[in-house]
């Protein structure tokens, strides 16, 4: 009887020693929009913006005075469009992304991710000369740039 009780104790220790064993290591879960900046006169060449400011409508800046040719922007999953403002220090262009957000289950630890379908882009053209593509069927990963901006 004593031995059985002892064994029981051992089993209880083993059972209670279990703890959370899986962590979400997938990064990112929900894809961001990847934008790359190219030279308008030579469309094959990356051309960084020397003084880039980016903010969404009614929000603080997400990028402030950075020199880069590639940015990643989160999309608002609670709405069907996100409006960003791109400034090169002197002029401001609005850049609108319209989409249908969809939830997709990933795993126990990562939960649900958002994918964005039927994506379309539109923009003012003060300093942004052009961009491509104008539509995308889906944004479900960020392995490659989603949109190229020529300036």
């Amino acid at each position: 009887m004593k031995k059985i009780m002892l064994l029981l104790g051992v089993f209880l220790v083993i059972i209670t020693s279990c703890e959370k064993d899986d962590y979400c290591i997938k990064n990112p879960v929900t894809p961001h929009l990847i934008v790359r900046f190219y030279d308008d006169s030579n469309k094959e060449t990356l051309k960084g913006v020397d003084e880039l400011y980016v903010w969404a409508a009614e929000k603080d800046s997400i990028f402030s005075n950075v020199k880069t040719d590639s940015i990643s922007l989160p999309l608002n999953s609670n709405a069907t469009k996100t409006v960003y403002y791109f400034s090169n220090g002197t002029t401001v262009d609005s850049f609108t992304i319209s989409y249908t957000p969809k939830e997709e289950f990933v795993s126990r630890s990562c939960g649900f991710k958002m994918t964005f379908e039927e994506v379309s882009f539109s923009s003012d053209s003060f300093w942004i000369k052009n961009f491509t593509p104008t539509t995308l069927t889906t944004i479900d990963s960020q392995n490659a740039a989603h949109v190229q901006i020529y300036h």
Partner: protein
Amino acid sequence: MQLMFKYITSICFLFFVVKGYTQNQQKEISIDSKTDSVVYKTNYGLRLGVDISKPIMSQFNSTYGGFELVGDYRLSKTFYAAIEVGFEEETTLEDFTNSTSKGNYIRLGFNVNAYKNWLDMNNEIFVGYRYGFSLFDQTLNSYVPNVNTTYFPANTILTPLTTNDLTAHWSELVFGFRAETFKNFFISVSGSYKILMNIKDPENFKTLYAPGFNRIFESGTGFGFNYTLTYLIPFQKK
């Protein structure tokens, strides 16, 4: 690290105890067999009982509720047919989801007693196999999409979404101990390792917990624990 240490120590402890136990018994058998040629008869019959670990866990854990009836029938000296039926309800809290599984299950199989009893004692160290089947509902109570940004935080969705009539089939290997504490009254402790054979998942979600199976790990495996009190209704002695 400390948990790991606790874990290893307790495993060492387990083997230490088992070894001490068996050696003790063997010595006594060898002394006795020289002088005694009487064949000791033991009871055969139907053994019924409950798993008391589940109601106890329900008391201490507000996210769990369960009840299980167990039974076995002795077919030969070492072979027992075994059955377990039960009900379980568990709420799984994860970082991004909160879901509840609720339903009934049945496990059918057998135990083989590997322990050689002394005289007319009726204790067991057993190994066994079970086939398990569970019929349950899973409700996604709430979730928040994992958007990995604070710039546009996601809203928590609080509309519960229930999927009915989910099923799970699995196999499990059982290892345990059983001791007769009073006449025909047994206490048993056992653990099991479960391997999922088939499962119906909800659409665009996953079954995170199946009644009778417990938490479903990424690899489709699981662990179980039973602490049962049973009473043997003897039919015959042989």
